[in-house]
């Protein structure tokens, strides 16, 4: 199915949540409202003509200037060999999104990483805890206003330069 068809199928079911404009390209970009991401993804996966059986990537982008966090879902269909990218935004102060880990198992880890590094909370995620950083780490490192701590468990994070200028 071509990008136009995918977008039309989404607008039919979710007219309120899906933007009327979409961006063409190798990965057609469809903008979706943050509250209905899980339902849109369920339609994309289960509808036979759409058949997006693989979540290729889930990335969060910290848009500090707009005070939003943007989350991108790159969906791929091995059956029909088409692909689409969903873009959604959520407020930066308390970012919340519905989980899609019940649709694609890989979303479990991708959402945990998004939580760990950006602080986006995924509602109904079975196990939302830190993935890459240590359990007792404070802060979300990929945020633009993240400040590195001076020490961690007694190990200093500063190193004096050997160059005496």
């Amino acid at each position: 199915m071509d990008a136009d068809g995918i977008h039309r199928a989404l607008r039919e079911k979710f007219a309120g949540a899906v933007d009327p404009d979409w961006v063409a390209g190798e990965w057609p970009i469809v903008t979706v409202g943050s509250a209905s991401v899980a339902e849109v993804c369920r339609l994309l996966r289960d509808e036979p003509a759409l058949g997006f059986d693989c979540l290729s990537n889930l990335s969060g982008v910290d848009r500090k200037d707009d005070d939003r966090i943007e989350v991108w879902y790159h969906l791929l269909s091995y059956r029909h060999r088409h692909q689409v990218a969903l873009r959604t935004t959520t407020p930066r102060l308390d970012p919340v999104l519905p989980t899609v880990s019940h649709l694609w198992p890989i979303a479990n880890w991708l959402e945990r990483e998004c939580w760990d590094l950006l602080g986006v909370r995924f509602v109904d995620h079975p196990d939302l805890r830190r993935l890459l950083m240590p359990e007792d780490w404070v802060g979300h490192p990929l945020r633009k206003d993240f400040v590195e701590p001076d020490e961690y468990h007694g190990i200093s994070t500063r190193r004096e330069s050997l160059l005496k200028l």
Partner: protein
Amino acid sequence: MSLINTVPETVVTTKVDDLLNWSRKSSVWYMLFGLACCGIEMMQTGGPRSDLDRFGAVPRATPRVSDLIIVSGTLTLKMALRTKLLYEQMPEPRYSISMGSCANCGGLFQLAYSVCDGVDKVIPIDVYVPGCPPRPEALTEGLLKLQAKIQQERWLVRKPDGAAAA
């Protein structure tokens, strides 16, 4: 040329410390502690072309039977605590080589928030091998420098305060 039946009964005289150190330095067993890219180069150094085994250095899996820990690769803060634990499990006398820029000083990951800038923040280091990653020849030279260091240690005759090393 064979020495059999050509020379009379021979006696070799040396210092006990020299003999001990020579046997110890010729059998430095290192722990497989490959963390990152330098770990691959450490494997290649132990490989057929530049063979570490000819110096007596054999890779061992556990710290309890190794003399040497070659910290090869980037040390993250999460891993640093475990590194200290592993080093403390090694029985003395134990040595450590810091291999590669990341282990020496953080390397190109000094800009990172999760990297410990140098393994000497958690364990004492005997030899630093620079490089990113160091060539097998460089790591071999590091091992030879460590052997030179071992050769100079003193066990039988020590300083008055009990220190063993010269």
